[in-house]
C-alpha cells in the first residue's frame, strides 16, 4: 500500500487505485503518518526551504524527549545498532536523502520514491530474520559471479565469494 501511496503522490495511480489510497488514508493512521513523512522527505530533496515540520504527534514527542548530546559518543555495539535501526529510520532516511542531494544527483533519481523506500526498507530490515548462506545461496552466487564486473577486472579472484567459508555478518 505504501508503494501506492508514493505513486499516488506522484500522480501515477489509476483512478480506482487512487480511491483505495484515499480510503486507506482516512482509515489508517500509519498511512497518514507515512503521508507526512513522505512530504518531509520530498521537501528536503527538493530543497524548497519549507520543511513540513507538522509531523505526527509521536514523532514530535520523541523529538522533544531526545537529549542534546554535546560530547562525542562511543560507537554503539552492533546489536544495539540493529535495535535502534527502526527508531532511527526516519532520520537515517533524511540523512540518505541529504547525501544524495549534496552529491548533486537530485535531478537524476526519482527522489521521493527512493527516499520513501529507503525509509520503509530501513524499518523493514530491522524486523527481518537473518539466514545463513545455504546451498541455494551458493548456486545463485556462482550464477551471479559471471556477470559481476569484478570478474572482468580481477579474473577468477572474486569467485572466492562463492566458496568462502566465512560466516555471515550482522547488518550494519
Amino acid at each position, binding site marked *: 500500500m505504501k508503494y501506492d501511496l508514493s505513486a499516488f503522490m506522484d500522480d501515477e495511480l489509476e483512478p480506482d487505485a487512487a480511491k483505495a489510497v484515499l480510503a486507506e488514508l482516512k482509515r489508517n493512521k500509519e498511512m497518514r503518518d507515512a503521508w507526512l513523512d513522505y512530504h518531509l522527505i520530498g521537501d528536503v530533496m527538493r530543497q524548497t526551504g519549507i520543511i513540513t515540520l507538522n509531523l505526527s504527534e509521536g514523532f514530535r514527542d520523541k523529538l522533544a524527549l531526545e537529549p542534546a548530546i554535546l560530547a562525542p559518543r562511543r560507537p554503539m555495539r552492533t546489536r544495539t545498532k540493529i535495535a535502534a535501526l527502526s527508531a532511527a529510520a526516519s532520520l537515517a532516511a533524511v540523512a540518505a536523502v541529504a547525501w544524495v542531494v549534496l552529491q548533486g544527483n537530485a535531478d537524476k533519481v526519482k527522489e521521493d520514491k527512493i527516499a520513501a523506500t529507503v525509509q520503509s526498507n530501513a524499518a523493514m530490515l530491522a524486523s527481518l*530474520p537473518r539466514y545463513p548462506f545455504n546451498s541455494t545461496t551458493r548456486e545463485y552466487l556462482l550464477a551471479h559471479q559471471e556477470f559481476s564486473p569484478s570478474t572482468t577486472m*580481477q579474473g577468477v579472484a572474486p569467485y572466492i565469494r562463492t566458496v568462502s567459508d566465512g560466516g555471515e555478518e550482522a547488518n550494519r
Partner: protein
Amino acid sequence: MKIWLVGLLFAWPAILLAETPAPPSDGITWLQKIATAAHELNYSGTFIYQYGSHVETSQIVHAVDSTGEHEKLEILNGVPREIVRNNDEVQCFLPSTKTVKVEKRIQRKPFPALLPEELNNLSESYLIKMGDHERIAGFDCQTLRLEPKDGLRYGHRLWAESNSGLLLKASMLDEKNEVVEQMEFTQLQIGGPIDPEMLKPQYPVKSAGWHYDLSGQSEPASTETGWAVRNPLAGFKKILETKRVISGKPAPISHIVYSDGLAAVSIFIEPLASGVKPMKGVAKRGALNIYTTPVDENYQVTVLGEVPMMTVMELGNSVYFTGK
C-alpha cells in the same frame, strides 16, 4: 544522531572540494587497462580476501596461451576448495562433499570486456578520481577512487600496478567510508612462463565418490522470463534476462541481472512447490547482500549483489509478473 547529521551536511561540500575529479578519460583509460591486464597477462601470487574479522588466503595462477585463458584459485586456509577456469567454463572443486560444480559462461564477451557503453554507464553513477601512487606487494601502484553519486552502491578504491595495469588491491566502501570488503595481493609475480601443472586441479575427480554437478547451465540469454522490476534503480541497466536450471530445484529459475558498470545485482525468481513455505529474510557477507521475499504467493524472489542491503531490498520489493 542529530549532531552527526549536521556534521554530515557541513562536511560534504568540504569533502567534495578536497579532491578534484580527474578528466574522465584518465580514469576510464586506467579501468580499461585494468580489465585488459586481468585477461592478457601471466601472473601468479598469493592474495587475501577480507571482510569484517574474516580473512582467507588464496593462491592464484593465471596463464594465457594459444588456447586461451586458464586460471586457478586455491583457498589455502580452512576447508580446501579450488576454482579452475578454462576460458568460458568455471569448475568449483569442493572436496568436503566430493562435488565439482560446473558453470558455463553463457554470455561470453570478447575481452577486454569493459565496453564503451558500460564505461559511460559507470561515469553516470560514480565520480572517478585518480589518486597517489602506493606500494602493494612490492609493486608501485596507481590508485583510483570511484565515489558513488548516490546511496544505491558502494564506493571502490583500486590499486593498479603502474606498468601493467594489473589490479593488486581492491576495496569497497560503504557510505561511512568504512571498508566492507577487500582483496589484496601480498606476493605476486607478473609475466614469465607458468608451469601447466600449476593450473590443474589437485583432486582425483575421476575416482570413486566424486560427482559432477552440471546444473549450472542456462538457456540462451534473450529468454523472456515474464518478470520485471517496477522501479528500476538509477544507473542500473539490465544486462541479462534468462532462465536457468539450478541444482536441487525442480523447475527452471528466472534470472535477471542489472549492472551499473562496476557492481551487479542478480534477481532470481523461483516457483515454489506446493506446500513449500515461502521465506523472507536477509543475509550479508562482505560486500554481498542478499534479500529473499515471497512474490505473487507462489514464487520466491532472491536478490543478491555487491551493493548495499537497501539496494537489493528495493529491487526485491519491486519485482512483479508482467503476465506475458
